């Protein structure tokens, strides 16, 4: 009997997950094996000790401190980020464009009718058309901001936002290390820890790196749930596993992009 292969059976017996007959049969299977019997006994002892453990709760002062700290750190309520995540931008713009077109038609027909009856008021028409155009641009900017994940596109001076300015937020300083060994990875981490910040003098706040439209895309920035700032980012392939490397404060963390599990930590 191979003990390594029996732990699921031992777990099931210890937890009483089987019916009486099944349980007896399973225990009979383990009976000839001393190691398995010992393992089963240890499982039962651990379970008994754990199940007898009393629950723990916060004290009144801890609870008050907890509520106060949380309240102090909460920013305005976040809204659901993407209600229509899979639609291309032009489809998401369609309602706004349709509304703008309808307004233009109404304004055009109205001014023709007014012009026929009372003469064309060129200034008024120009003002209305400009307002509609501004509305259209505002909608476009809002949609583009949503698409790009950018929180702020307004330049503060009311200038027209160009298409170039609507690009996704860029992350500079992402180092590509290519295919490396585990030893190389340790060297890279050591190098990252001592190098100058490649992400600006103060680094990136995590909120920025969590933008879904980031370029280049970072898969695991969201997992690096530290409160610190990321001051260096790298990407590599270690033993066939694609990883992302983040320097967060004094730590260098390596995440597998397959599942964003932490694979290495260099302190």
């Amino acid at each position, binding site marked *: 009997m191979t003990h390594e292969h029996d732990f699921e059976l031992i777990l099931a017996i210890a937890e009483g997950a089987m019916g009486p007959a099944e349980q007896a049969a399973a225990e009979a299977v383990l009976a000839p094996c001393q190691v398995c019997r010992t393992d089963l006994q240890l499982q039962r*002892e651990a379970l008994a000790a754990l199940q007898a453990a009393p629950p723990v709760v916060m004290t009144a002062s801890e609870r008050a401190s907890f509520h106060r700290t949380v309240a102090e750190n909460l920013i305005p309520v976040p809204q659901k980020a993407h209600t229509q995540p899979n639609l291309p931008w032009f489809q998401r713009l369609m309602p706004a464009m349709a509304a703008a077109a309808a307004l233009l038609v109404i304004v055009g027909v109205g001014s023709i009718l007014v012009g026929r009856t009372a003469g064309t008021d060129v200034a008024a028409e120009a003002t209305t058309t400009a307002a509609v155009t501004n509305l259209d641009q505002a909608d476009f900017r809002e949609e583009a901001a949503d698409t790009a994940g950018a929180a702020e596109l307004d330049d503060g001076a009311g200038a027209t936002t160009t298409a170039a300015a609507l690009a996704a937020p860029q992350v500079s300083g992402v180092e590509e290390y290519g295919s490396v060994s585990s030893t190389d990875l340790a060297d890279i981490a050591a190098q990252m820890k001592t190098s100058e910040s490649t992400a600006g003098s103060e680094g990136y706040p995590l909120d920025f790196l969590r933008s879904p439209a980031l370029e280049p895309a970072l898969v695991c920035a969201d997992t690096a749930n530290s409160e610190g700032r990321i001051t260096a980012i790298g990407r590599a392939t270690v033993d066939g596993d694609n990883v992302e490397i983040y320097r967060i404060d004094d730590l260098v963390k390596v995440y597998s992009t397959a599942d964003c599990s932490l694979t290495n930590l260099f302190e």
Partner: protein
Amino acid sequence: MSFRSVEDAGLVSSFLEGDRRAFDELMRAHEDRVFAVCLRILTDRDAALDAVQETFITVYRKAGQFSGASAFSTWLYRVAVNTCYDHLRRNRKHQAQPLPDTTDPADVRSEDLLGSVELRPDLEQALASLAPEFRAAVVLSDLEGLPLQAVAEALDVPIGTVKSRVFRGRRLLAEYLRNLSGSSAHQRGEHDA
């Protein structure tokens, strides 16, 4: 799906529509269990308090990323466990401390419970002796009573890995308790002699 899960889903939805009270309700519904998980993993009340605060602040900021594919509580535990892991990494150089004698007479709910915790310092020591990965699996499975599948989702590992961690964690814990009780008996024997 349990009543709690349905209620949580509704609260998350309300919160994402801008209802701050829904978040408060979610927090109050889960804060004790999250605190318990953090305390069992970190074995230090101050660190656990920091971790539970950080957990709910993260949940508040990232609630929009909760997909609803699993129960809210599972997602919450995942955030809590990751926060605890971060704390442990940051404080790796510090030795884990046993639970302090913290009682607060003002909190009637916790007074007796804390008293009873102190009756089992051996269990606290045994838990603290486990590697964090084993400890988290045992805490979620055996102390919080999560199904193994939910533990797997909370720890973001395959269910086979969870079974292995629970199995090995319990075995180490029982062995530690046996040794502790053996050495206590030995000390008692010496004292009696």
